[in-house]
């Protein structure tokens, strides 16, 4: 039904320059060209570009979003359909990605944003984006924008920057091509009649400003749980509009490379029959939570799935959704594996979950959001030094004498990823 080829152009270094090019794996970004392109949006007053490479003593803060630069070669539309491009079917044709590069948008919409990426040392261990060659895009918006417009401006600028840079891959020969192909549920089931049918339910924060997710440009707060082909999210259908849950938000980059989809795909036709993704909104109201969980189970049952992997986004009220979905699925005989993170306190001695259901028998933990890490002073800061003060002001003694600061993992981008993008977990000691 859908066949997607992802052509990876390996990026091994990044620099700013006068034209955009990739030579021997070195990505050069046309500084003036990109700034001019972004400033076509009159709401943008100023753009500052910089690069951050793995191992450099650089700290990026506050991070708004991370996006993978790509270009559409065939099928669909270039860009993000429904957002920066006209509507088109995502998930088919060929897409080239600058593999190893990332656009990191910086800029605070509200003063309390955190979201750190350290490119070196202790901090680098805790974020997957210390391993990418990052183009940082720091956006100053025009005065007097309301917060919604401000957020939208920065969100769109990040996507457009990724598009601008990604375009360089258009005429290039990728270093490798990965193919994702899956027929209709009936075709796949006919092919693998004996394999257990598995769905992926991806919960998304959908609760208002700074807490939004978009699918084909539709604010997912307004949707009923929707079925996506496994290829769509891997091909720019889903973008992030949230930026206050640093450790467990799903950045746009992580939607484009959703590890849960990729790891389920890898087992398709071997151990499982992977049917697709249910996109589940996380509502604020309890009736919304009941509706979304009922609807999710109904889709699972309509498709006859035997099992489901459920991933969460955020922390706090979404924990309720996760456990309600788990409870309903298990009671209906659907084997459920959850991916979440936990708060076991700074010393790790608290109960990890305040909410518990006995049905949650198979849970993957992305780590303790309150785990304290010590970040040594950076040689260079990209973004807003004030945001570091927000971090350092978190509690008494957060700022140490030698300039190091102690922060909880919750401030680090992608540290406790609940789609299982990172390698952190908790063990009982």
């Amino acid at each position, binding site marked *: 039904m859908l066949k997607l080829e992802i052509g990876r152009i390996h990026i091994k270094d990044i620099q700013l320059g006068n034209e955009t090019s990739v030579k021997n794996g070195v990505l050069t970004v046309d500084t003036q060209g990109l700034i001019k392109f972004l400033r076509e949006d009159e709401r943008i007053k100023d753009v500052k570009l910089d690069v951050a490479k793995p191992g450099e003593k650089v700290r990026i803060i506050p991070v708004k979003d991370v996006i993978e630069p790509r270009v559409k070669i065939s099928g669909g539309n270039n860009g993000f359909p429904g957002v920066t491009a006209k509507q088109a079917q995502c998930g088919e044709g060929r897409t080239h990605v600058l593999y190893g590069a990332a656009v990191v948008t910086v800029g605070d919409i509200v003063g309390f944003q955190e979201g750190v990426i350290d490119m070196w040392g202790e901090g680098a261990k805790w974020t997957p984006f210390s391993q990418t060659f990052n183009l940082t895009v720091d956006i100053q918006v025009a005065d007097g924008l309301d917060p919604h417009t401000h957020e939208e401006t920065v969100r769109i600028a990040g996507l457009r920057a990724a598009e601008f840079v990604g375009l360089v891959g258009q005429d290039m020969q990728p270093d490798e091509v990965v193919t994702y192909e899956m027929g209709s549920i009936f075709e796949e089931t006919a092919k693998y009649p004996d394999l257990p049918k598995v769905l992926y339910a991806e919960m998304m*924060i959908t*609760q*208002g*400003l700074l807490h939004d997710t978009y699918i084909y440009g539709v604010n997912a707060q307004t949707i009923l749980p929707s079925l996506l082909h496994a290829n769509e999210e891997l091909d720019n259908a889903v973008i992030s509009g949230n930026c206050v849950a*640093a450790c467990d938000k799903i950045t746009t980059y992580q939607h484009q490379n959703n590890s849960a989809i990729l790891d389920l795909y890898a087992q398709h036709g071997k151990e499982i029959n992977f049917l697709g993704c249910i996109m589940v909104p996380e509502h604020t109201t309890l009736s*919304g939570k009941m509706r979304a969980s009922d609807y999710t189970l109904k889709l699972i049952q309509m498709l006859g799935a035997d099992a489901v992997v459920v991933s969460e986004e955020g*922390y*706090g009220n979404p924990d309720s959704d996760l456990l309600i979905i788990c409870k309903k699925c298990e009671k209906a005989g659907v084997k459920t594996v959850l991916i979440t993170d936990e708060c076991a306190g700074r010393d790790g001695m608290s109960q990890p979950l*305040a909410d518990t259901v006995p049905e949650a028998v198979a849970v993957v933990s992305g780590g303790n959001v309150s785990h304290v890490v010590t970040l040594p002073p950076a040689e260079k800061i990209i973004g807003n030094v004030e945001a570091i003060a*927000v971090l350092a002001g978190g509690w008494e003694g957060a700022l140490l004498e030698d300039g190091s600061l102690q922060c909880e993992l919750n401030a680090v981008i992608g540290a406790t990823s609940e789609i299982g993008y990172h390698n952190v977990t908790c063990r009982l000691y």
Partner: protein
Amino acid sequence: MVVSGNYAKIRKGRKSMKNIIITNNPLVAEKFEDVYWTDGSVEEILIKIRDLVYQGYELVSHPLASSLRMLFSPYRSVIISTPKQQLNFEHAQIIENSIIKYRNHTSCRKTDDQNRDDYKRIDLLLLEAAFAEQQGMWQ
């Protein structure tokens, strides 16, 4: 209902009192009807909600936000509905667990005073989004 302490009951207009907002956010008190406002802390808000749930009120919105950063907000607004005859056990557990979680995260944190205005605004926007969630519902 019992209104104790420094809770001020604010009602504007004549809308029926089906939903009540418990808040310490002055922007919310200004904008909405049927608000119980207090100048207390978020913890006090949560405790007030717990007491009301024990009396038979139900939660309409979840007591906690969906991001860690909003757990550090000094402002919080939660929607509850008028009391039923029976205590809703699930809601009692939700509010109890929310209080535990809230305390877990904020016990050794300083209040983020610098960004109070931003927190006020975002809390208001999130509350409005909650109201927009089910537009077809008879209020």
